[in-house]
């Protein structure tokens, strides 16, 4: 059996990987931060870190490495936000109030063309969008570690060991978080009258 150095990821593989993962990464950051700009910054930051620091790794390692970077970048965001909030509170007397209107982007009002034809019927499309929204809201309300474990295991399809490495915890913790997340999600959706 030939043993040799593992095959390193080519630029095409890295590009393909990022293209495949970027939307899910954005959604993960959104579930955590509930802030569009922050989520985009987090994804951009994570992509740059992956390319700059781990481009020389085998393609098979990219998903786990990217998830680890993404989770750390989300934590960094919350750390920075904590420091920023301290300053904001300190200087609150000088605050100018709401600046949300400045960030209005007309492009945001247009939905991207969906790639699936599964819900071509407007009623079904509306129904699906409603269910998706309920599920996303429920996910946002989960404790951070449970949400993280659930998304890594089931959405990113990492195995328990990879999810544990990405989260920096034991495999047992991943299983516990996943189990609790599934129960909590089922309860929340049931309370809203949604049975999957």
């Amino acid at each position, binding site marked *: 059996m030939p043993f040799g150095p593992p095959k390193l990821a080519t630029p095409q593989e890295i590009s393909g990987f990022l293209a495949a993962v970027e939307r*899910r990464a954005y959604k993960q950051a959104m579930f955590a931060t509930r802030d569009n700009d922050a989520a985009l910054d987090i994804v*951009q930051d994570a992509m740059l870190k992956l390319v700059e620091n781990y481009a020389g790794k085998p393609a098979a390692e990219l998903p786990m490495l990217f998830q680890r970077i993404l989770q750390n970048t989300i934590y960094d965001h919350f750390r920075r936000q904590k420091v920023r909030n301290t300053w904001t509170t300190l*200087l609150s007397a000088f605050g100018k109030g709401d600046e949300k209107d400045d960030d209005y982007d007309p492009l945001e009002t247009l939905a991207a063309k969906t790639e699936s034809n599964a819900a071509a019927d407007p009623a079904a499309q509306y129904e699906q969008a409603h269910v998706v929204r309920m599920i996303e809201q429920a996910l946002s309300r989960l404790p951070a570690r449970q949400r993280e474990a659930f998304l890594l295991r089931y959405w990113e399809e990492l195995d328990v060991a990879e999810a544990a490495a990405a989260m920096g915890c034991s495999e047992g913790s991943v299983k516990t978080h996943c189990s609790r997340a599934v129960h909590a999600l089922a309860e929340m959706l049931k309370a809203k009258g949604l049975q999957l």
Partner: protein
Amino acid sequence: MTDDHEKFAKKITTYLDAGTAEIKSGTAYRLQQARAAALASLAPGAPRRAPQTALARAFAGGSSGDSGDSGSFWISGRLWFGILLIAAVSFAFQQWRVVQQTRELEELDAQILTSDLPIDAYLDRGFQTWLTRREP
């Protein structure tokens, strides 16, 4: 992990996938740009760029040109200089307000203490009436 859990999770992730397909076009475009920026650093000899945050973009006046290392440094430098300046001015203003208030209170105390009128007079109900009656 039971099969029921797996099935339930599978259904949830199917809906989540549908949610990613519904991402707004502006967001999808910005994600695409972020990916392109990350991949640009893969090119041989490409300068390493610091990620540009929304705040930094705002300070940079929305310019999207390639600023390279020095550009990022100046954006970052200007940003931090601005933040420090605002913090310093705010701190100085608060200190000035505290000093002013203390000085006003000291003046009031001194006036009351050096006045011939006893302090009790200010608490007397009839004193204000007497004062207004005496005014021309």
